[in-house]
């Protein structure tokens, strides 16, 4: 029983950063832009968050700075993929390369000489249900995790389906000609989607450095951005189904950590466990991906003439 409770609590923790990024990607893809800059934006967010928190001594300043840097990264993606009409694969991968390089470079400049990796005091975990059985340990989570699951996800759903902006955003991802002909600025909607998406991706990265680890390392994101993209497809571009996907990934990840920690004497190398969550993601994607209904205008730059 304890095992299941602690596994569930860990699942929510692990899922948070990926879920934030995946919700960000849901916004951009729903508007018709595949943002492959996601991995770099998470890394950038993790770094900026850590750096600003370190020099200012305020975790919240770090988080805010990370979100702002993510919004800027999203706008840069918009400049290339929306305004200039550069192929989305090219501009997205370019953005990831740029931001990863930039973050590493700045990290070396600031912390390069240190013998021990720098660290900060991370966000504390809350425990609203105190020592109640099950609920107590399960509720021991970061505030950011609460915000993600209880605010960001339902809000994304509400915005997408129950607001004027969401209607335009979904329409832009399906048929930008229709949105243009209806007198709505297609570019403005895509810029907004990429800005929101970038902010959420960077917040996902900052969660890793400011809450989960309290440090910044080269491998801090290690492919979570790519997994988030898979989860968006798995979740059929629906915030709640994407959340389900992030829980499946988070659950396998937490499970594999525990399997490793048990130190079982198995004839297979421990790296096999590391691969487990990714294998499960691929499997889920293969099963769900066949019925995926891609936004019809995904990958297509919009041009009037």
């Amino acid at each position: 029983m304890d095992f299941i409770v602690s596994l569930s609590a860990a699942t929510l923790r692990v899922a948070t950063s990926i879920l934030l990024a995946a919700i960000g990607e849901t916004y951009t893809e729903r508007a018709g832009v595949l943002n492959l800059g996601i991995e770099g934006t998470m890394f950038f967010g993790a770094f900026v968050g850590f750096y600003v928190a370190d020099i200012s001594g305020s975790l919240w300043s770090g988080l805010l700075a990370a979100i702002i840097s993510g919004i800027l990264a999203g706008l840069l993606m918009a400049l290339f993929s929306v305004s200039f009409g550069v192929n989305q694969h090219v501009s997205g991968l370019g953005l990831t390369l740029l931001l990863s390089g930039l973050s590493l470079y700045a990290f070396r400049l600031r912390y390069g000489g240190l013998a021990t990796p720098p660290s900060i005091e991370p966000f504390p975990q809350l425990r609203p249900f105190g020592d109640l059985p099950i609920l107590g340990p399960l509720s021991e989570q970061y505030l950011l995790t609460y915000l993600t699951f209880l605010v960001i996800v339902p809000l994304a759903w509400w915005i997408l389906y129950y607001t004027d902006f969401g209607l335009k955003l979904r329409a832009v991802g399906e048929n930008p000609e229709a949105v243009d002909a209806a007198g709505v600025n297609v570019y403005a909607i895509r810029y907004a989607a990429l800005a929101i998406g970038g902010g959420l991706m960077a917040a996902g990265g900052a969660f890793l450095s400011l809450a989960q680890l309290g440090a910044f390392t080269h491998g801090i994101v290690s492919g979570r951005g790519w997994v988030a993209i898979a989860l968006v497809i798995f979740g059929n571009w629906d915030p709640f189904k994407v959340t389900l996907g992030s829980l499946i990934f988070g659950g396998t990840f937490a499970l594999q950590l525990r399997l490793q920690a048990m130190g079982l004497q198995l004839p297979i190398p421990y790296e096999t466990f590391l691969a487990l969550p990714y294998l499960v993601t691929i499997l889920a994607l293969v099963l769900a991906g066949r019925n995926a209904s891609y936004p019809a205008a995904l990958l297509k730059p919009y041009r009037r003439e």
Partner: protein
Amino acid sequence: MDNIIEMQAITKRFGPVIANREVNFSLRQGEVHALLGENGAGKTTLMRILYGLYHPDEGMIFVRQQAVRIHSPKDAIALGIGMVTQHFALVPTLSVAENVVLGFTGSFRLRYAEIEEQVAAAALRFGIDIDPSAIVGNLSVGQRQRVEILKALYRNAKVLILDEPTAVLTPQEVDALFETLRRLQKEGLSVVFITHKLDEVMAITDRVTVLRDGQVIETVETAHTSPSALARMMVGRETFGVSRRSSMEAGAPALQMVGLHALDDQNMPALKNINLTVRHGEILGIAGVGGNGQRELAETLSGVRPPTAGRILVGEHDVTGGSPADFTAAGVGRIPSDRHKGVVGELSVAENLTLERLMEFTKGMTLDRAAMLAYAEDLIAQFQIKARPTDPIRTLSGGNMQKVLLARVLARNPKVVIAPQPTRGLDIGATDYVREQLLAQRKRGAGVLLISEDLDEILALSDRIAVIYEGEIVGLLPAQEATAEQLGLMMAGAVKEEVNDV
């Protein structure tokens, strides 16, 4: 009468192409004004300028005597201008109500019940019959068009631009559209009606402006003109149209479809129990509204799409389940319906002409370029293609590209010619040419299966006419007995008969 819209000396260039050349156009308050011209005459360009989708290089626009600059559809909408574009600007995954209010909701939060109520009220007020909660992707083309019109009127349009609104409709839907337009006209709406169909101009409009090669030829009162006068202005010559002149004795079966079934790309039944025979020396026309199985039929009959049941016979030869090469070898020639997919744009005319029979132009391991060029010269002369053998085919006009495709297929003297939408998107000259070629094939004794959404084309060329509706043949009759009304009813699924023609 006051002009609600005036466009003065509008010029618009696309690179070297001058789409509009000093065009003057005026729309009076409350009239239906036809913009008539062949494909490429510049009709769509002119109206996209008025709707803010393109910007003119030169010229002025006045709305209610005020000079205006229209930067985007948003400006046009604010001026009371609405446009129904040729390819509908709707989002198929959204509901009718969502499409109608898109960008025009007035509040950040969407209250679906209220929105649907408002859209339903608007539909009632404008006399447009549509269910606001239906998903647009599930609607017929005619219904989608109504959504588009409602969308414009919901935005308080006083000027409605319709770009070739009847191109995709059944005759009954056209009647319904005209009725709606007449009613809206009485309520003071002004309409620009883009078309290249003369009978529609005569039926619904008050004035006509004829465009040719980007220039205005004339603006006339409809009551003071005639179809032949309009045709002359439109094409610069008196008559047009090619049709079957004599009836011929049809011969032995050239192509037989026996109990044919096939699926579409979504694995839904697309062809259901088709039993038809095309005889030597006849043109069998397949009429129907687009998307009722025409594409699947053409693909099945050329070996591209395997049937799920039934048999296909070419002469005595059973080719069921064969590859496209087997069909070609058995004597089936298909004229590709999408010209741009039928050719390889970067290759030359000569290479495209010989693509399917390169074996015949091979010496040892290498291609015999000289023989290919000579062969191409021959076909270019025979089919009156305006191009050199070495020109990349992408530089050819649509009409000439279609001639290349015809030449490639017909040079082999196929026993059966499958012609899906052979004249779609061609101007009158090229259309006549293609139709003449099909008639020549019939005269030569080939069996021709003509699949067309253009009812006039079907009526002009076919010996017998079958109607396809939702993948079924719902009627088969000799061309002499067929009328547009009767075929229209069948095309709309209102009349169905069991057809077993084998």
